[in-house]
């Protein structure tokens, strides 16, 4: 085929889109205009043929004709009969040449504008070339499969013209329209629009528009179908030579059972066949309406069982992610993260050391605007195919891809502001312990009154743009986003640029190549959280006795000094993957994925040299101190898999899959520390007087393979069995490969014939599912190997010292999970309900067993010794309460419960935080039951039974009794009272520092076709705080209410405060359950009529707030000190890499207000 022919055929393929989009961009208008001009200017049949051929195949002859005459011939090569032709047609018109060439072939032709369409004379057998229509997902090949789009249908749609030509061209019309989602009003791409009785069909473009040409005049049934939506049928009357418009709004299916889910096997799997719950977050839809700036905001509270442990309100600081709670004592519970099929860095502690603050989550590096959807694979039963490291779950991020059609441009801008609501509430009042009669200090207000406002309304701005389009052979998505987000102090900001380019190429009908490339570059400047340098702790630990000193009552340093410190993270990150999918037949699919993720950071923490040197609040650091580090984290993944689909008769369909994966990750950190700068101008390590440097390199590799067999019975009962084997460089030399089996079963009961009569229409869809499987969690990288490290010997001679005593028998922690549940659609898809119960058993739990110190090694040695249990349930529902033409009201809810228990500590010595038979990490305190006291007035009282004057100031505690403990191990409340000094610390509440219960409720009002009002509230149930920070607000500095006034009503708090029995309930152990109104928004889609003349296809305006109202707390105050409910810092004891303490020093969540506008061209 010549270049010219290719271009011509390309034009043909794009023609419908170009014509349809004629009112769109100027370019499209121009092209369409030119075509129209050509149509009017000349009849192609009348053009000179200039053809002379001898004994040439018909196809080749037609190509020659097209070349020589310059006309566009549209035909399906596969439909051409095989015979040779000869034609001396140089001086005759094209019409005569065609009559000659087609005479033997039972072919006819017709003119459509500038094109000549050649079709068989007989009617085609199937509207879409023989492909089944009813079930779209099964057996379709092509690049769209993983997103549930039957791309092969797109290719067939290119042949519309040949079907249309069977009708008389003088008696046809055109149907145009737009398909949207009825709930979101968003255009729906890749919906199939057809006239089944006529065998005509097409797919909607990315703007939701479609055009059906050559529709015979008359009334026809227009069928619109899309996976995940209910099919719609409309009667359409076509008038001869006219165009009729039909816009259709599809309703979402309550259960998207035919949706394709990324399961680890090539091509994915229909949801109906998966035996476990898989969460799906439609990112592209959510970002349209909700105030989303980070990935955490995108994912947070959307999926039951997925929890973000928030760090603080500092802009740029991230959170750790927990799926189904903690399930390891010693290892990180961060789930694996995949982007477009490759594993990426999932570090949640990147960035500079912020002095006990949470750090950066690399998940937040990605821009929500470039994400199409996210799938959450929650537990071992689902994650078996991901093998070792996957037992904490898997997050699959799928970025946006191109769609065939004319280029579509999307531009968005978000402007807004961040602020801290109720600053005075959080800061509270400080009192002078030594002078209790003095008025309290409200430091924030005092500073403000004196003209020093330290907090700001931080501006927020995000600009993004994307372009997507393509042909059936090449599709592209290009996007860019710039974000500039400031916190409540001017030196806390994040500026980041994200670029993405995704290209899909179909070099042939059976090969698809996806190339996905993302790059980001950004800088974040942090505010430090904790002493000695944070402004926040300086306020909440205000020192009332120090108001007249240099630090004006701040805990340690003046804000104007703190703001001269710097803590920054510069990051650049490249994430690239290539997926090659080969589908040589409709029963075989192979996929090869290769990709890498590389993150380069430069972290810096600077205390500049002050002219005053060491006499500043920063002491010797005031002479200058700079710490830098340059972590480079890299992952490399290769994934190959094949799936074979074959039938055994009409009832049974089998799918066999095999695959091999290789993952490699490394972290290389170069760091340096410089102290004492000679002069304030010097701010580099090189200029420091004292310098030190360090370098570390850690690498891990894993290799594994799986085999899976799926059996489908009448497409409603599915049984799946799989086996995965893994080896990992972290395993001990004596440990063989880890083997993980998996079984699952699912039954779409509602597809059974008996169901309608049984369910009576109440439950229109019901699927039962269960899954059992294992997954692993690898040990620390070098835990299996005995290591020595370098040291300095006498006289500077080299030396070594012992480092880690390895365990050559070390293997992975193995989690086994059983999951059962159901999905139901009720009231004719007006409501959906998904319920899952799961129970996990962690065996060979890795325990940090102390090393006998007399061996010459210290610390602990990892051993596969413990056993843990983790269980819970998840519930999600969506209900459309009202649904009229102009008004709809939807309510969505999620609830989840998670609990755990240490079954066996494997010989590890129990502690107050870790006991067999108890949740972990266990939260314990001595629980005061009776306190006898005397007041300064000499009065005696007994708390809580006999308190003569609740406000009287307590002078002395004469005795304090605490619960002596009950239960199987004496750690439950309810025992006989004993003196607090010898009382045990007992489990407090549910014993957990993470919430046992969580839930969300969201509501959406759709008013007319254009206005949507949305709100989402989040609730986290009972969990407890171990708060050094909160305690210190009584005991540190000048002291607070309790320490100052010591009222008899709070005397139980004095038991701990006065040192009579530390670790007692009262001062620092609040239940931190809370409920937050997280998101509210109003989204208005600008009517199309307003956009006419602007060249825009679609526009919307969104006004939103995040965290507008913390409307409930189990404990808003503890003894007049406010309780911050959800933040935590890194100061507490750790478990699996997490800080257990919720220190209450965390800056509360910021509130933000944003106005966004999005325009599509």
């Amino acid at each position: 085929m010549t270049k010219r022919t290719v271009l011509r055929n390309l034009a043909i393929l794009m023609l419908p889109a170009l014509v349809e989009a004629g009112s769109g961009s100027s370019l499209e208008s121009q092209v369409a205009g030119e075509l129209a001009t050509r149509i009017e200017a000349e009849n192609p049949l009348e053009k000179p043929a200039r053809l002379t051929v001898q004994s040439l195949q018909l196809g080749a002859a037609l190509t020659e004709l097209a070349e020589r005459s310059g006309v566009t011939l549209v035909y399906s090569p596969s439909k051409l009969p095989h015979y040779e032709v000869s034609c001396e047609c140089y001086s005759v018109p094209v019409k005569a040449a065609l009559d000659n060439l087609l005479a033997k072939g039972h072919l006819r032709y017709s003119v459509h504008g500038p094109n000549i369409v050649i079709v068989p004379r007989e009617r085609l057998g199937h509207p879409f070339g023989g492909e089944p229509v009813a079930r779209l997902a099964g057996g379709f090949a092509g690049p769209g499969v993983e997103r549930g789009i039957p791309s092969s249908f797109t290719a067939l749609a290119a042949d519309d013209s040949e079907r249309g030509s069977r009708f008389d061209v003088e008696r046809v019309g055109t149907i145009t329209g737009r398909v949207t989602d009825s709930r979101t009003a968003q255009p729906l791409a890749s919906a199939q629009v057809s006239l089944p009785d006529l065998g005509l069909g097409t797919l909607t473009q990315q703007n939701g528009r479609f055009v059906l040409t050559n529709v015979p005049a008359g009334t026809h049934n227009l069928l619109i179908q899309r996976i995940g939506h209910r099919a719609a049928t409309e009667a359409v009357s076509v008038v001869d030579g006219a165009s009729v418009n039909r816009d259709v709004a599809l309703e979402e299916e309550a259960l998207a059972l035919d949706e394709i889910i990324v399961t680890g096997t090539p091509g994915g799997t229909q949801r109906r066949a998966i035996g476990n719950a898989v969460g799906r977050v439609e990112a592209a839809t959510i970002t349209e309406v909700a105030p989303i700036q980070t990935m955490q905001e995108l994912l947070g509270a959307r999926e039951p069982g997925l929890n973000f442990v928030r760090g603080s309100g500092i802009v740029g600081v991230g959170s750790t992610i927990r799926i189904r709670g903690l399930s390891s004592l010693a290892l990180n519970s961060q789930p694996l993260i995949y982007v477009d099929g490759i594993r990426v860095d999932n570090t949640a502690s990147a960035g500079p050391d912020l002095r006990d603050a949470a750090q950066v989550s690399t998940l937040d590096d990605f821009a929500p605007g470039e994400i199409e959807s996210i799938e959450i694979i929650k537990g071992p039963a689902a994650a078996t195919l991901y093998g070792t490291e996957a037992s904490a779950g898997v997050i699959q991020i799928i970025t946006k891809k191109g769609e065939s059609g004319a280029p579509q441009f999307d531009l968005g801008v978000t402007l807004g502001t961040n602020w801290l609501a109720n600053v005075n509430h959080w800061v509270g009042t400080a009192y002078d312990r030594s002078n209790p009669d003095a008025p309290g200090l409200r430091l924030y207000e005092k500073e403000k009154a004196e003209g020093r406002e330290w907090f700001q309304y931080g501006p927020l701005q995000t600009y993004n743009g994307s372009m997507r389009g393509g042909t059936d052979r090449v599709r592209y998505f290009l996007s860019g986003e710039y974000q500039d987000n400031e916190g409540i102090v001017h030196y806390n900001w994040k500026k980041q640029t994200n670029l993405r380019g995704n290209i899909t190429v179909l070099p042939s009908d059976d090969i698809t190549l996806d190339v996905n490339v993302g790059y980001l570059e950004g800088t974040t400047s942090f505010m430090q959280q904790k002493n000695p340098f944070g402004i926040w702790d300086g306020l909440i630990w205000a020192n009332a006795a120090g108001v007249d000193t240099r630090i004006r009552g701040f805990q340690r340093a003046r804000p104007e000094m703190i703001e001269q410190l710097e803590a920054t993270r510069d990051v650049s990150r490249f994430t690239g993957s290539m997926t090659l999918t080969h589908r040589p037949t409709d029963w075989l699919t192979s996929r090869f994925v290769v990709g890498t993720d590389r993150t380069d950071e430069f972290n810096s923490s600077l205390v500049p040299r002050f002219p005053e040197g060491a006499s500043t609040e920063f002491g010797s650091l005031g002479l200058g101190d700079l710490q830098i580090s340059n972590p480079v984290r890299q992952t490399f993944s290769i994934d190959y898999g094949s799936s074979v689909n074959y039938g055994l008769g009409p009832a049974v369909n089998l799918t066999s899959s095999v695959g091999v994966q290789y993952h490699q990750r490394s972290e290389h950190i170069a760091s340096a520390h410089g102290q004492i700068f000679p002069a304030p101008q010097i701010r580099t390590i090189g200029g420091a007087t004292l310098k030190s440097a360090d370098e570390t390199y850690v690498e891990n590799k894993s290799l594994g393979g799986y085999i899976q067999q799926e059996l489908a019975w009448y497409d409603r009962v599915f049984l799946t069995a799989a086996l995965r084997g893994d080896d990992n460089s972290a395993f001990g030399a004596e440990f063989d490969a880890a083997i993980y089996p998996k079984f699952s079963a699912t039954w779409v009961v509602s597809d059974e014939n008996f169901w309608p009569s049984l369910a009576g229409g109440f439950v229109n869809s019901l699927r039962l599912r269960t899954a059992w499987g294992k997954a692993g969690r690898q040990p620390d990288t070098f835990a299996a190997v005995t290591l020595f490290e370098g040291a300095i010997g006498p006289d500077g001679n080299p030396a070594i010292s012992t480092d880690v005593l390895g365990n050559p028998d070390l293997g992975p922690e193995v989690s086994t999970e059983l999951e059962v549940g159901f999905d139901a659609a009720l009231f004719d898809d007006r409501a959906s309900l998904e319920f899952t119960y799961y129970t996990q058993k962690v065996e060979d739990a890795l325990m940090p067993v102390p090393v006998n110190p007399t061996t010459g090694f210290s610390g602990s040695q990892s051993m596969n010794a413990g056993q843990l249990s983790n269980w819970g349930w998840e519930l999600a529902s969506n209900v459309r309460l009202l649904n009229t033409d102009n008004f709809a009201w939807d309510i969505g809810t999620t609830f989840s419960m998670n609990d755990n228990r240490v079954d066996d500590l494997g010989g590890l010595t129990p502690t107050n935080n870790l006991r067999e038979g108890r949740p972990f990490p266990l939260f314990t305190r001595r629980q005061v039951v009776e306190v006898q006291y005397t007041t300064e007035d000499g009065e005696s009282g007994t708390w809580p039974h006999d308190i003569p004057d609740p406000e009287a100031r307590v002078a002395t505690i004469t005795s304090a009794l605490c619960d002596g403990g009950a239960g199987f191990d004496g750690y439950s409340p309810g025992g006989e009272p004993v003196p607090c000094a010898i009382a045990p610390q007992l489990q407090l509440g549910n014993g957990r520092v993470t919430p046992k219960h969580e839930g969300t409720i969201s509501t959406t009002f759709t008013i007319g076709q254009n206005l949507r009002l949305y709100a989402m509230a989040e609730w986290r149930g009972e969990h407890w705080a171990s708060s050094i920070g909160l305690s210190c607000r009584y005991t540190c500095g000048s002291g607070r209410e309790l320490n100052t006034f010591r009222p008899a009503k709070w005397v139980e708090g004095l038991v701990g405060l006065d040192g009579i029995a530390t670790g007692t309930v009262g001062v620092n152990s609040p239940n931190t359950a809370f409920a937050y109104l997280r998101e509210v928004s109003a989204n208005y889609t600008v009517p199309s009529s307003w956009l006419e003349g602007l060249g825009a296809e679609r526009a919307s305006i969104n006004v939103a707030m995040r965290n507008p109202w913390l409307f409930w707390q189990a404990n808003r105050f503890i003894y007049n000190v406010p309780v911050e409910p959800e933040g935590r810092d890194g100061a507490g004891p750790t478990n699996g890499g997490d800080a257990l303490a919720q220190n209450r020093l965390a800056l509360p969540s910021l509130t933000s207000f944003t106005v966004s506008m999005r325009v599509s061209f």
Partner: protein
Amino acid sequence: MPGRTYRRASLSAVALASLALSGCDGILDVELPGQLVDSDVFTPDNAELLVNSAIADFECAYSMMSATLTTVGEESWAGTGGWGTAHGDYATLTPGQGHCPDNSDVDTDWWHGYERARLFSEAAYQRLSEEWTDVPNRERLMATAAVYAGLVYDFLGSTFCEYAFPEESIVPPSDVLRRGEAWLTTALEVMGPDDYAITSTQSLKQLAHLVRARIRRTLGDDIGAAEDAAQIQPGFVAWVTRDGSERGRWNEVYYTQYGFRYRTVAGPRWWSDFAPDQLVSAGMWDLTIATDGTGRHTVGDGVPDVRVPEVNTHTPILDGFTPFHRQEKYTSVGDPHRMASWQEAQLILAEIERGQSAVARINAIRDVHGLPHFASSDEEEIFSAIIEERRREFFLEGARHFMDKLRFGLWFPRGRGSTRVGDRYGFAYCLVLPATAYELNPNVPADYIGPDLTDLSYTWELQVDEKPNWPVPASLPQFDVMDFDAIPWSQW
């Protein structure tokens, strides 16, 4: 041919999976450029490195010990709260991650350095003597390894109540010290007529003799001790080298005072609810020697003892209350610690010889420092003077006074009390191994919990029969066990 293709695909995948799980060990090899594994460490080429490593870990531990155990020996008084206050309850200490080169958790883990030094020195000696026969300087390396192994056993045996070596059961201090004596004897045998100078001493042989003398004296072998001590030449000194390169190489005594105002060398004189002049701890009070030479309880006209230099900073230590008397013996983080000297040999001989011979040896030492002579004909007073002389001569050097208190059964506040600011301290006596050293040793009975220091009849195994009349200041509470009732219970 779907069937054939399917089989081909399946076989390929299974083969790939099998390959992944069985045959591709090399593909999982990882780089470890920052650390060494066993097979890289114990090679003949590393013989010198291993001996240097033993010395490095020993020196780190010695420096940490000198800073830490001074509180138990009442050479200093800590003021940070937590375990370090005054008298640590060692039974509750468990090994942490830190050790000397890591700079972390240095207080509780100082003695790990001794264990690492033992590991390296014994491993090096064993391989040098049995396998690595062609290593250059083999005898010097063997002798050095043996001396440092002996030093480790000396300090472990002189401080712990008992010990539990891996793959052995519990052994008393005498057993530990005998192992040290054996190593030093081995070192001397390896050296034969030769002697070696190493970084820390000009005479490895004299160091071996002196440490063996020290051990033999503790074990009651006065004849052997005297023979060894007599080998030590005037001016002999051996050092624990220090420099400022990294925390593990710092002089910790200096750092804990200058860096953190962590300890004061003078015991506090007052205590809440007690008489103002009552001492909580003996401490290094009145650090002068009076003209009468008694050297105790004198104020005013005494001659400054250059061996115990200190300055009253007139500021509190870290607790904000206790007056900060800062030691001036070490003036930088790079100052070396003395660990053996001619003076020690003289005092060992003085202990053995007693009488005017001891007085002469004391005065010979005082002559070195230009201090007034001591004179007495009272045997008990002379004996006490020897102890006091050791206390001053070895001030902040290797917790020597703590070891003397164990040997001679001197006063320990064996009770639980509170500091002035309310920090509690616990039972203090000989050191108890961390519980894990018992629990993780299969040769120790599961229900064994270590020596019970609350049992007031418990004495250190090698306590000498004779007890010097070494004075406990009159202002100290005169009880072996703190009188609980004398302290307001709210301070517990």
